[in-house]
């Protein structure tokens, strides 16, 4: 496929189709809708980190005036432990136990029952009246505790190497012969690192409003990263067929991976079914922090060997990631992405999924990859220091390029990693002078990106404008990019293209908004749909002109006779052809559904400057430049926005954010005051450099851009802190108490 150049709309900073609604408060997010007769649902949650549920008595709650329904795990479809049922990357055995505790409550905040009542206050009171008899069990939260001999085992069925274990899985990536590789090394550096669990931190708490008819016909209004995921998971967990469920995507107030699974929808569906009333459920911030997300805390060890001239000959990584109380940590990202920016002959990368009594992790922006990159990119910084090499020069010397066989398997096509390193090196930031107690660090990162299923429908309206429907919730501006592409192909003003997100009844199956796949995949289906529309328009013009359709070209929003008929007929515009549609064969529109392929990985290289306050231990980021191979920036404003947003999240992860557990195994900081995400005054401007190396497998050259920007950040900040202080940190966050501890030695 040829990448279109000389574009009119692709690459323009157009106004997003959903923009006016979002700056006027008109956009409807999950919690913004009501229905006549609506009642309120609330969840009763376990106070214990680990407890067998011996009995649940809901009779007092049910007797409370105003209570309309109560559900427990008995109402949810069971998925027996011994049979895996996969939905995408999620196993329904774990999902059914995550939305409601079955045999055991596995973390503080684990749902135990749910109530629907005529007011939130009555529902909350009813929850207090539910009597749960628990047998409290020993628990562990931290990785090292969960792996100790004699540690409390969360699940009897889970075995590792034949013995009961909290290790839920192991994966390995291998290339060459690691022993041979290290034998050839002249310098070897091995370090161990720790990161804390961090939350995705979306500002919109999970919420839904659900109505179920007497015939089971169900309408779900909720915000998620995939209305089809909501439909499928709710169907699985309630037993209602997918065809009876219409999942309508509300505007979504941030997800970052955390809204790729359901929490409330199955409970609200069952409550609505039992009560015969529409049920609304909205989580509090505390519930969000205790029972949803976050991503894993980790322990890792990385060993890298090189020759004196800076050629990396061997690399080994071992990554232990917290899964939460049910299997499924993002070890694939840590194991598979960490070494991929480099051409290394011998690699062994191993990951372990470690269960403990905390909430089940959910995806978070390039799941696992930032954890791996933090360790690898910090070791590379030490290696560059030991070799007296510039850290970018070390990376350039070992950079993966077209033809490199990546550690995780594939042979790279044309990629832009080297371009990001060169752009970083040439950037004025890299050579700007630094002051006292200031330091500079660099780091790179890689993410796989993703393709997968997407559907689109492109319809021409009777007045000659365009409505595009896709199946992906738009979190960060994908509608704006789709409008640019469709307008470009049709040769019309982008304001004539309306882009909507269809619900599960109005558009074909589309996979999640996640993995940095949405624009890659939806641009493909929208392009093919628009091409079909253009083919129809050309045929109709040919019929009117009584010439061959091949002799009609589509340009600037109109059909033109091509040679040999060029100039013989007046062009027929989109509006003219739309007006003639009823006489010319009917409505004009086309839909395409694909399982898209050809998503290529993305690379970024970041430069970070920090200043350390040695009295208070505060690290401030004072300058930041993110360079990324973005493929093709369809809407540069929202590409930059993805880069800046990822960087800000990474700075939070590096410097402040962490789950703090108390001695009872409960999260002690379940709110935005104590779980300290970056605020506006914490950050400098975040500079971006978009390197465009088009994806050869995509009609517009698109590569996913959302995940990569989080991957290098923690290492870039850590390397900058080392550069400022001359001391290295091997664990996150580099928060004031820890910084003071290291400064004071």
């Amino acid at each position, binding site marked *: 496929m040829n990448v279109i150049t000389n574009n009119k709309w692709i690459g323009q*900073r157009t*106004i*997003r189709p*959903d*923009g*006016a609604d*979002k*700056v*006027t*408060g*008109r*956009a*409807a*997010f999950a*919690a*913004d809708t009501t229905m006549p007769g609506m009642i309120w649902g609330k969840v009763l949650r376990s106070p214990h980190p680990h407890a067998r549920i011996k009995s649940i008595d809901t009779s007092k709650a049910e007797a409370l005036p105003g209570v309309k329904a109560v559900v427990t795990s008995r109402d949810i479809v069971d998925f027996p432990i011994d049979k895996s049922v996969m939905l995408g990357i999620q196993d329904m055995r774990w999902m059914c136990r995550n939305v409601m505790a079955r045999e055991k409550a596995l973390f503080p905040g684990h749902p135990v029952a749910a109530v629907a009542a005529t007011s939130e206050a009555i529902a909350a009171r009813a929850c207090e009246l539910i009597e749960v008899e628990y047998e409290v069990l020993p628990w562990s939260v931290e990785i090292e505790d969960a792996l100790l001999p004699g540690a409390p085992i969360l699940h009897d069925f889970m075995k590792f190497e034949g013995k009961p274990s909290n290790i839920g899985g192991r994966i390995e990536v291998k290339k060459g012969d690691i022993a041979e590789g290290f034998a050839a090394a002249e310098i070897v550096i091995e370090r161990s690192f720790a990161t804390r669990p961090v939350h*995705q*931190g*979306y*500002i*919109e*708490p999970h919420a839904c409003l659900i109505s179920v008819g007497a015939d089971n016909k169900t309408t779900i209004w909720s915000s998620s990263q995939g209305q089809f995921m909501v439909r499928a998971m709710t169907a699985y967990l309630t037993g209602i067929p997918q065809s009876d469920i219409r999942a309508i995507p509300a*505007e*979504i*107030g*941030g*997800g*970052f991976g955390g809204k790729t699974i359901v929490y409330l929808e199955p409970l609200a569906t069952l409550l609505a079914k039992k009560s015969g009333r529409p049920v609304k459920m*909205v989580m*509090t*911030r505390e519930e969000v922090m205790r029972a949803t997300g976050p991503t894993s805390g980790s322990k890792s060890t990385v060993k890298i060997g090189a020759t004196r001239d800076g050629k990396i000959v061997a690399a080994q990584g071992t990554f232990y990631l917290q899964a939460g109380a049910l299997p499924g940590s993002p070890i694939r990202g840590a194991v598979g992405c960490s070494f991929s920016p480099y051409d290394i002959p011998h690699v062994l990368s191993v990951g372990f999924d470690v269960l403990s009594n905390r909430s089940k992790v959910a995806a978070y922006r390039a799941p696992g990859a930032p954890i791996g990159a933090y360790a690898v990119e910090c070791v590379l910084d030490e290696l560059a220091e030991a070799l007296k090499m510039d850290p970018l020069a070390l990376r350039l010397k070992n950079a993966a390029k077209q033809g490199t066989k990546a550690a995780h398997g594939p042979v790279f096509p044309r990629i832009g990693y080297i371009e990001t390193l060169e752009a970083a090196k040439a950037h004025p930031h890299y050579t700007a002078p630094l002051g006292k107690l200031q330091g500079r660090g660099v780091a790179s990162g890689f993410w796989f990106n993703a393709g997968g299923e997407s559907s689109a429908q492109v319809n021409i309206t009777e007045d000659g404008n365009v409505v595009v429907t896709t199946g992906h919730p738009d*979190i*960060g*501006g994908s509608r704006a990019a789709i409008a640019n592409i469709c307008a470009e192909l049709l040769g019309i003003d982008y304001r004539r293209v309306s882009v909507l997100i269809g619900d599960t009844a109005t558009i074909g199956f589309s996979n999640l908004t996640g993995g940095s796949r949405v624009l890659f995949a939806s641009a493909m289906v929208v392009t093919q749909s628009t091409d079909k529309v253009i083919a129809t328009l050309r045929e109709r013009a040919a019929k009117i002109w009584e010439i061959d359709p091949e002799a009609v070209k589509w340009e600037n929003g109109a059909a033109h006779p091509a040679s040999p008929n060029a100039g013989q007929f007046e062009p027929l515009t989109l509006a003219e052809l739309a007006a003639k549609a009823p006489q010319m064969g009917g409505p004009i529109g086309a839909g395409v559904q694909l399982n898209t392929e050809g998503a290529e990985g993305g690379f970024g290289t970041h430069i970070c400057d920090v200043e350390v306050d040695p009295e208070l231990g505060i690290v401030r980021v004072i300058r930041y430049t993110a360079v990324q191979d973005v493929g093709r920036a369809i*809407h540069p*404003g*929202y590409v*930059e*926005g*993805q880069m*800046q*947003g*990822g*960087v*800000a*999240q990474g700075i939070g992860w590096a410097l402040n954010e962490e789950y703090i557990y108390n001695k009872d195994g409960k999260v002690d900081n379940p*709110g*935005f*005051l104590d779980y300290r*995400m*970056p*605020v*506006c*005054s*914490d*950050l400098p*401007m*975040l500079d971006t450099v978009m390197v465009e190396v088009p994806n050869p497998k995509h009609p517009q050259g698109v590569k996913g851009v959302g995940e990569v920007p989080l991957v290098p950040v923690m290492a870039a900040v850590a390397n900058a802190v080392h550069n400022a202080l001359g001391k290295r940190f091997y664990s996150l966050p580099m928060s004031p108490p820890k910084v003071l501890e290291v400064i004071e030695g």
Partner: protein
Amino acid sequence: MTKLHVSTTINGEPAEFLCEPYDTMLDALRGPLGLTGSKEGCASGDCGACSITLDDRLVCSCLMLAAEAEGHELRTIEGMAHGDKLHPLQQKFLEMAALQCGICTSGMLVASDALLQKNPRPSEEEVRFWLAGNLCRCTGYDKIVRAVLETATDMREQGIREFRQ
């Protein structure tokens, strides 16, 4: 328990509502008043998504009791544009991609408007500290700060001191 009857002014128009004594202003706005542009992100005054003004003072409506609105004048995101004419801040946010998911946007705009009313010539640092009570998890704040600074310049150059009707 009898509900309280509250008479107030919202976005320049008289408004009346009933509330429980413990209801927050945000509950009243989003519930009986049907003004869902103000969002609840935390209910503890930490995220600023519910920002409104009370007699021109910027407040988190989740920290204000609904009954306190009696006799006062409130402004919310719904009162920021004039019909289909957007406030210069709203227009600039769109032009500069200063929003991604949009959940913090109402609060950001209300807070930024309150800043420019008070200080038509803010420095970057003043913008950053003024908006430090408004969490955004999508943008890294860069485009938001730039949009506020550019709007301030535009409004000064065009002599717009007061956008309100």
